């Protein structure tokens, strides 16, 4: 059936339904907007350390790992998208986990997510230094013979260099969010166009290097010395590093946790909503398209990296001790891309997408964190000052300050100690993702009426589709959590990460309990605040 709106032709409607002139009727956000947001969250720049981690999984196919992570990401995205259709108001997973599971579960899982989002808000800045700026300056230094540039590259991997990146990202985005500058949005959009252009140039550079038009081996020898490329392979062989393994599906599966760390976060667009409830297909399409396109790009880049530089060379160079590697730089693939390009302009252009994506992903973490704090406060489970908005700037000042302080502490820990590693927060982030999967599984049974009337009341036989998808997604996330816990190569099972994963959840549970008691003492029953009013 088709239909159209009446009274006001421009009033948004949905097929088979009539609408009238009334406020709040807005169209769904565009699929491409959701996808674009998902791209930001995925932060393809992470591919630099994802490829570097390949060495830990002998026999793993990076491409198969990406495919597995993408497939799991799609299932997780379906859970998020379906639940966001049922609960379309802005607020995201906190809202539907509170409704479907329990207010306490909603708060605990949301607090855990935010705690780890803030972890990455600070650390993403350090990633910018380590995986973006350092390789770019090192390549430029090597290509021009300018030792100052090489030294700057090295400095960005030092504790102060890492912390500077963290402080830059936290500082810039805290100020920007406080001021709410419109110019920022324009700058960000333009930066995204630049990133896309830069990424395309990288793809072309890698294709040229893969097909022999550009010779990476020759260019590497030019900057590192005659025979340096073969030297790396020989040095690795002499050190007992094997770079030839037969394909292993299990190792590919274990490796998949690395791309998952990037691809799964497209689901954060879940906080977008709208009142015209026509299935909100843009969420479904946008999230999945973001995962599929970025998964595809990741897969393509990995393939091209291998073709351009040689799988054996990537594995050999990443496993060599620093003093055996012929360049004064870390052996990341963006360093190699710069060298393959063979000129400084291409090096800068090839670096832009990594820099832009690593820079802007930190901003989203801060925004998501302050919005969630606002929601907790309004629900009475956090102090009122969490939702206090600056009269002049209309921004949640104190939440922002708190977020910036927590993010800075994490950036300091990452930069100056060995207690925090790259995937250190992924263990904790898996917990709220698992919570959403569980919410998806039980939703049709705990909220039967809501399910029946919802746009997602699909069934496979007699079993709700969302339950089936939730079960498979939960298995994927559960497996990832298990691997992160038992495999030291991810760096997620060190003492601090495990303690903080448990600690964040325990703290949130305690927080809820204390707030409940405190409110009760003031005559407000927190349970009654959330309890559904019985219809008599």
């Amino acid at each position, binding site marked *: 059936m*088709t*239909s159209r709106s*009446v*009274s*006001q032709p*421009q*009033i*948004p409607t*949905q*097929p*088979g*339904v*009539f609408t*009238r*002139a*009334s*406020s*709040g*009727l*807005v*169209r769904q*956000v565009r699929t491409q907007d959701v996808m*674009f*947001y998902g791209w930001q969250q995925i932060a393809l720049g992470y591919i630099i350390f994802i490829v570097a981690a390949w060495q830990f999984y002998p026999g793993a196919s990076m491409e198969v790992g990406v495919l597995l992570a993408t497939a799991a990401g799609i299932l997780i995205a379906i859970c998020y998208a379906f639940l966001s259709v*049922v609960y*379309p*108001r*802005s607020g995201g997973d906190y809202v539907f986990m509170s409704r479907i599971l329990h207010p306490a579960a909603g708060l605990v899982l949301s607090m855990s997510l935010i705690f780890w989002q803030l972890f990455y808000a600070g650390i993403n800045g350090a990633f910018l230094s380590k995986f973006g700026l350092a390789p770019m300056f090192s390549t430029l230094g090597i290509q021009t013979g300018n030792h100052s540039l090489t030294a700057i590259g090295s400095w960005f991997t030092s504790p102060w260099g890492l912390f500077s990146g963290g402080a830059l990202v936290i500082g810039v985005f805290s100020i920007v969010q406080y001021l709410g500058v419109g110019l920022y949005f324009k700058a*960000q*959009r333009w930066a*995204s166009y630049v990133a896309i252009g830069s990424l395309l140039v990288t793809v072309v550079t890698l294709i040229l290097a893969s097909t022999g038009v550009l010779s990476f081996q020759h260019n590497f020898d030019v900057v590192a010395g005659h025979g340096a490329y073969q030297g790396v392979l020989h040095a690795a062989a002499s050190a007992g590093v094997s770079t030839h393994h037969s394909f292993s599906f299990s190792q590919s599966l274990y490796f998949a946790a690395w791309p998952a760390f990037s691809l799964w976060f497209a689901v954060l667009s879940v*906080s*977008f909503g709208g*009142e015209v409830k*026509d*299935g*909100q297909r843009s969420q479904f399409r946008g999230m999945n398209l973001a995962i599929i396109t970025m998964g595809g790009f990741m897969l393509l880049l990995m393939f091209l990296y291998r073709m351009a530089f040689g799988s054996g060379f990537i594995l050999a160079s990443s496993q060599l001790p620093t003093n055996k590697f012929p360049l004064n730089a870390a052996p990341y693939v963006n360093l190699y891309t710069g060298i393959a390009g063979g000129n400084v302009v291409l090096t800068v252009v090839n670096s832009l997408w990594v820099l832009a994506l690593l820079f*802007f992903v930190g*901003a*989203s973490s801060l*925004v*998501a964190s302050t919005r969630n704090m606002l929601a907790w406060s*309004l*629900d*009475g489970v956090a102090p009122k000052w969490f*939702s206090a*908005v600056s009269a002049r700037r*209309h921004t949640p000042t104190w939440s922002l300050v708190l977020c910036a302080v927590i993010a800075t502490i994490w950036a300091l820990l990452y930069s100056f100690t060995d207690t925090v590693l790259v995937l250190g927060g992924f263990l904790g982030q898996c917990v709220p993702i698992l919570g959403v999967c569980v919410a998806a599984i039980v939703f049709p049974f705990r909220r039967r009426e809501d399910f*029946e*009337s919802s*746009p997602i009341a*699909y069934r496979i036989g007699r079993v709700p589709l969302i339950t089936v998808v939730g079960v498979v997604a939960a298995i994927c996330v559960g497996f990832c959590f298990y691997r992160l816990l038992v495999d030291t190569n991810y760096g997620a099972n060190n003492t601090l990460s495990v303690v903080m994963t448990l600690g964040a959840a325990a703290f949130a549970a305690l927080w809820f309990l204390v707030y409940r008691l405190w409110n009760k003492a003031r005559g*407000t029953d927190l349970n*009654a605040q959330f*309890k*559904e*009013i*019985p*219809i*008599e």
Partner: protein
Amino acid sequence: MRIYFCSDIHGSDKCWKKFLSTPKFYEADVIIVGGDVTGKFLVPIVETRRGKYSCRFNGLERKVSAGAPLQHLLDMIADSGAYGYVTTPDEYAHHQQDSEAVDQLFRRLILERVDRWIELAETKLRGTGVRVLVSGANDDYFEVDEALGRSELIEDPNGAVVPLGEGYDLMGMGYGNITPWACPRDVPEEELTRRIDEVMATVDDPGKTLMSLHVPPFESGLDYAPELDDELRAVVTANGLKMIPVGSTATRDAITSYRPVMGLHGHIHESRGVHDLNGVPIANPGSEYSEGILGGVVIDLDRRHGLTNTTLVRG
């Protein structure tokens, strides 16, 4: 005295039934709906063949048989705030071509539901001592006021001052500033100011008055909604939805100049909260009517101590 305030239930049967349960659930003496009581969607349920019906509701094609399944579907639609109506393929085709006929149908179904709600309220709350205040607002047709006026139980504070007891009054204003949707009671800010001032001129003591102004004050923290483009689509940036203040300057001026006990607002469903505007507490309970969730504010007022509690609840 305990007051329960909610707003923007937009035709949801479920929310209305919950609203009528609030006196018992929250132990409220006065319960208020601050406007926008009527729904926005009509769902035609077409009889495709004898005893078989089909409609598209919430994005899904639904097929049911006559009897209990059809009634269940109608209830489900009503709970979401929409108006389901059973029709024939010919009538549906006619409605698709005739916007005037759809408008008439909207009015008929809206008023039927309001009448049914009044009946439910009177059955449930008459004689209990609970005061029930319901007003229309910018999305409601003016006929809704007439229907509310016929009730012996429900009081309509729209454009009036209603004594609440213990020395407190409540004034109501359902008109709002201009929106992109050109709603029945959208007026320019100057006219809104004039209307508020006219009502406030009849108030004994603004400091002992609760002002129920449907549209929240501009830049108050209770008026943030997604910025819309020319197609009425939310603007998204790489940081998410772009939220902007869309409240009323007339409302803001009224709150800051009259300094009431409290400002009670609705209209912006996304901007739930309790804030402070130049020392005056203001609240917007938000709205999640289509999910059947009733957001509200529980307010405790005391002759001696004044305002002692404002708690946002979600029932």
